[in-house]
């Protein structure tokens, strides 16, 4: 079974530029998550999708961050404009449909973003 795919793996941009990250979840996984992991901290959930609908985006800085999952499969996370404090690893994860089952999340390798 193929894992969660993410690209690019690394990205360096200057502040005020825009950047986009792509995620392809495990086939059949209805739930997709984007996390931000700042160096030395645990991952923090930014947004959760169930199919193509948003379940939780309470911690997404909506003035600069946006995410979509138009066809309920791949997802894109965008930052525009980037700030220095956005430097982090952005992790994508997926899991089976939540429902009444309690499935673990499977994580991709992440995209390391450096904002100069």
């Amino acid at each position, binding site marked *: 079974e193929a894992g969660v795919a993410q690209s690019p793996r690394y990205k360096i941009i200057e502040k005020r530029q825009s950047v986009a990250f792509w995620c392809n979840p495990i086939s059949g996984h209805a739930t997709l998550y984007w996390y931000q992991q700042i160096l030395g901290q645990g*991952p923090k959930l930014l947004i*959760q999708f169930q199919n193509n609908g948003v*379940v*939780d985006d309470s911690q997404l800085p909506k003035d600069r961050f946006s995410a979509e999952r138009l066809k309920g499969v791949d997802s894109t996370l965008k930052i525009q404009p980037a700030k220095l404090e956005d430097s982090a690893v952005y992790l994508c994860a997926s899991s089976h449909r939540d429902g*009444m089952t309690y499935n*673990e*999340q499977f*994580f991709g*390798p992440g995209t390391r973003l450096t904002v100069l």
Partner: protein
Amino acid sequence: AQSVAQPEDQVKVAEGNPLTVKCTYSVSGNPYLFWYVQYPNRGLQFLLKYITGDNLVKGSYGFEAEFNKSQTSFHLKKPSALVSDSALYFCAVRREAAGNKLTFGGGTRVLVKP
């Protein structure tokens, strides 16, 4: 609100010795608890989870964790550590209610010396 505390930033053990990584949590209602491991430049890998039932949970790579409701703890253990266990370990919690929002601890770096 739910939270996780991993009180040790780093744990050092000698290869062959027992390894314990501590985790305490705070959540309303019944908790679902998870341990993940992160190797350099890689995503998090699932180790084990506690949902209900036996308080001792066995997971991947010889790891196990003990759920203690009275102490709100979920410590990760391995009887005999390997050098290859050196990595960053994260404890996470979610509520029993619908929704799979995980809250992670800050992580504990494990260093196993040969």
